[in-house]
């Protein structure tokens, strides 16, 4: 456990000791700010029947952050260590492969959460300017955050796997992004099979990230996507562990 904590601290602090971490947070803040401004401009002097946060997921920048943050945060995890040669040093230290994978994943997920934290001050600023009728509710805001965390946990674990498979950060980020975008595009499969019935149409509907986020934004937490995201995360982490273990087989 101590080794895990030490590794976690090392990985997490690495984000804040380089400029990259701040650039990522700054870029996310810019995109969140842009999303809010677009929504405020669109609905200014208008009456909404739903909280402002309910429409947040439908702004393009939201998905841009969700899809880009994972690859950018995780690309260096294993690939950079392999490229600089510190990976072998790490693996010969008295820590298990599982501890290494979990520490790197937890640190990356922790940083992912940190990148989204500025959403709260942004909400409070918007609230401050629109205090006559609060444009959001805490319940749906919390469930939106929960949805962001769940989807992020999948993308981060996917990024861990991509980074563990290569020594090039660029390739890791590209592979991770490609799979992330592919998963996102599955959301649109639902619209092509909407008139059909049967298991395929149902499965397509159940895999829709957009639909899941729509629920979370409305304050509805469905256990089905929760289980889906948790199992996907566990699956990708298992593959990452096997990829890390695989170095010994050569």
């Amino acid at each position, binding site marked *: 456990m101590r080794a895990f904590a030490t590794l976690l601290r090392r990985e997490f602090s690495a984000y*804040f*000791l*380089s*400029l990259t*971490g*701040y*650039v990522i*947070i*700054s*870029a996310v*803040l*810019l995109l*969140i*700010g*842009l999303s*809010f*401004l677009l929504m*405020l401009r669109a*609905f200014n*002097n208008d*009456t*909404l*029947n*739903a909280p*402002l946060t309910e429409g947040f997921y439908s702004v393009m920048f939201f998905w841009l952050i969700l899809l880009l943050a994972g690859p950018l945060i995780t690309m260096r995890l294993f690939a950079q260590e392999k490229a600089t040669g510190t990976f072998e040093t790490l693996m010969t230290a008295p820590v298990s492969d599982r501890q290494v994978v979990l520490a790197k994943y937890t640190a990356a997920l922790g940083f992912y959460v940190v990148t989204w934290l*500025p959403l709260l*001050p*942004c909400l409070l*600023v*918007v609230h401050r*300017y*629109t205090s*006559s*009728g*609060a*444009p959001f*509710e805490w*319940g*749906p805001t919390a469930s939106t955050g929960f949805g962001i965390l769940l989807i992020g946990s999948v993308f981060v674990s996917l990024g861990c796997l991509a980074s563990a498979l290569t020594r090039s950060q660029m390739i890791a980020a590209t592979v991770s992004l490609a799979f992330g975008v592919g998963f996102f595009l599955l959301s649109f499969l639902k619209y092509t099979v*909407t008139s059909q*019935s049967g298991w395929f149409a149902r499965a397509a509907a*159940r895999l829709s990230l957009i639909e899941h986020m729509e*629920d979370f934004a*409305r*304050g*509805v*937490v*469905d*256990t*089905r996507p929760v*289980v*889906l995201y948790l*199992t*996907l995360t566990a*699956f990708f982490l*298992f*593959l990452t562990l096997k990829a890390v273990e695989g170095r*010994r*087989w*050569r």
Partner: protein
Amino acid sequence: MALDAPQPSFSPVHRRSLWLNLALSVIGLLAIAVMVNYLAQRHYTRLHWTGDARFNLSPPTLRLLESLTNDVQVTMLFDRGEPVFGAVAGLLKEYEHQSPRIRVRHVDYHRDLAGAELLANRFNLTTADSDLVIFEAGGRHKIVRASELSDYNLSELVAGSRQARRTAFKGEALFSSAIAGLAEARTPKACFLIGHGEHDPASDRALEGYRSFASLLAQKNIVLEPLRLVGGAGVPEDCQLLILAGPQNRIDASEVEAIGRYLQQGGRMLTLLSWLRLRNGPSGLERLLAEWGVALGEGYAFDPPNARAGNDLVITNLTSHPSVKSLQGQSLYLFFPRPVEPGPAANRGGDAPKVTPLFGTAETGVVTGVDADGTPRPNPLRDRRGVIPLAVAAEKGSIAGVIADRGSARLVVVGESLFLAEPAIRSDANLDFANLIVNWLLDRPDHLAGIAPRPINEYRFSLTVAQLNQLRWLLLVLFPGSVLGIGLLVWWRRRQ
């Protein structure tokens, strides 16, 4: 072979077995993940983290969805920009999640012109028919339009506002009724007796119109038809409920006879007799009601400790009769009610009608006498005091030798009719009372019990250009810039 060439750690056979082991463990984990998700799809919960639980389905809707045996295709022909789109889509999604029989699809007539055209041809929609929801099952369909889905506060419009404020969303009541209507084999018919100055079911005039009551019946998939009994016409055979709502003139003897025949054949009747509308005159029904064990009292009841503004009356004394049991603890709001109570012919066993009071005044109730012109003349010595029954339910089983093709006859008599007119029907639990009474009369205890409209929360904001500029600086420059500044500082210090 060069000595510095890397040597494999494992033999080819061992390495193959490692890869096989990896492949099997991946397949095994994948299988477990699929099984877990399969189970999660079958046993799931949807938690609502909203303060107003606007997407929670009510128990009657849940019961209805559980009882569905046929597939129902729901098509939303809606523009995404329509104000109620989110509420409609969210609610229908809950229906879909709740029942595998419900399939929902959305056609945006701005984006999918061909789909919208197909629907227009199939359901004979006109160009004015935009933003609606079509429910289809077994070759039948019902349409709910966006204009029906909201209640509005028109006072702001009157006060000069550009648009009326939406106050409540009636989606669940309308959607559930539409589904229930498609699930029902036949639609019950209610006959609304006219020709004696009854309330008008098409009007929303204060204390006259019965539009909300008619809407309630429509929501319950009951077809309401006007009925004239003049000229010896009888009550139609397919009439499941006869409604007599606040006649102002005496009902003719031949008409009373037709009503009597209808009741003898196991008819169901809701009788609302207003003292104020009849100006203390006879309704013509007194004898018939007496035969059915119902006695109409003289004068009107009042109860000063339970009045809000004079001669109105807040009723909290509801009995435990099955029809109104669920209203206990709630109140009704009435005006000048006349006493209605079990008469001498009631509850005598055998074939005698079983008559039960539904509600009455509190112990402080008083029935005062009136002059010939209707002016109340209180007399502390003669006036009746105590609990005054104001409504009764009468039931009578099949009579020997009489074919009661509708089962047992049922009758509800209330000594007031204004309480179900506009806008009083929306006061207290008046609408719920109407709903429950109709359910009892039609023997539909589990039918959708008046699903209340959900209040709409409005989120309004108005930012000036200066405020928008300030926000732009804050959100696009100050926040990201300060984080970037900290990053540059860390980077610079580490370089030092």
